[in-house]
């Protein structure tokens, strides 16, 4: 395997999952959500879905950022934009996580030029 092919394949798989496979996701509530909905019935009304009965989900507050541009994995609430929102999320996550991990690896080690090394880790492929 060429040196870069692993990284390219990993990144491509990540973008494909967020951008394409995500359209095939189940829209049913997940295990946690359905636990909080036990005891309630969801009825469709003109204003959206209403909960009737007695359940944990009735105590859930609306998200303070519910009207933000990428809320609910859509661009401005538009249907069919989940894949683009997902790709934006992947890029934001890799930048934040990569930046944080780079800082952790390089930070606070005055006088050392490279992050910690362990026996057996020096062999570059």
């Amino acid at each position: 395997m060429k040196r870069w092919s692993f990284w390219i394949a990993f990144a491509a798989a990540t973008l494909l999952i967020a951008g394409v496979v995500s359209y095939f996701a189940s829209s049913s509530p997940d295990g946690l959500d359905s636990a909080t909905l036990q005891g309630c019935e969801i009825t469709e009304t003109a204003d959206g879905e209403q909960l009737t009965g007695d359940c944990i989900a009735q105590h859930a507050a609306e998200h303070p950022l519910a009207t933000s541009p990428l809320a609910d994995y859509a661009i401005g609430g538009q249907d069919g934009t989940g894949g683009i929102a997902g790709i934006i999320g992947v890029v934001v996550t890799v930048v934040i996580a990569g930046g944080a991990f780079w800082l952790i690896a390089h930070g606070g080690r005055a006088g050392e030029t490279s992050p910690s090394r362990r026996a057996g880790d020096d062999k570059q492929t």
Partner: protein
Amino acid sequence: MVVNTVAMHMSDGIVNAPTSVVFLVIAAVAIGICAVKARNELDERTVPLAGLVAAFIFAVQMVNFPILPGVSGHLLGGALAAILVGPYTGGLCIAIVLIVQALLFADGGITALGTNITNMSIVGVAAAYATAVALYAIARRRSPNVPVAGLGVIAFIAALIGTVCASMAFVVEYAIGGAGATSLGAVAAYMLGTHALIGIGEGLITAVTVMAVVRARPDLVYLMRRARTEVPA
């Protein structure tokens, strides 16, 4: 009230404010510890892997899979992150995903970040990692070179256990300060049942991903790197 069933994580308000604050403090302390300890897990080659693992978990969490009629599940990612990049870096990966989801995608509450991080990036990661380390040690005693399929089995079991433990952490939070009249026993039984099934999906995704990385770049996999640096007992 109007509900939104897109959310994947705990919303604000389903545990009370004092409980949320306690878990925000627990999560903040844990993230601080992870940030210090992750330094020993990270080097030039594993920083990019850790960044990609976080992004991969974000992507896969979007893909809910059906587990029962009308009920789905999604990857939590604790086992995957811990096996590939280490428990402390892995905990940070999941926490970063949860923070991005809450702040950018309005998925998972803001005051609920403490409980969500506790469940998935502390309890889920710790339980999965402890399981993976124990099983890997047993496997290496039988044969020092654990086959790829063996690592797949270890990843599957670690992921299943991590998922169930994370769901039980929610039950503990609900017991401490949950809102709503649903009995604790009913919540516990429902969470256990659904997350045993979600854990099978989590296990399959984790096993397939870990095996793919082990085949391509075994030198990067934390669980195997860690064992190589240890003197066998």
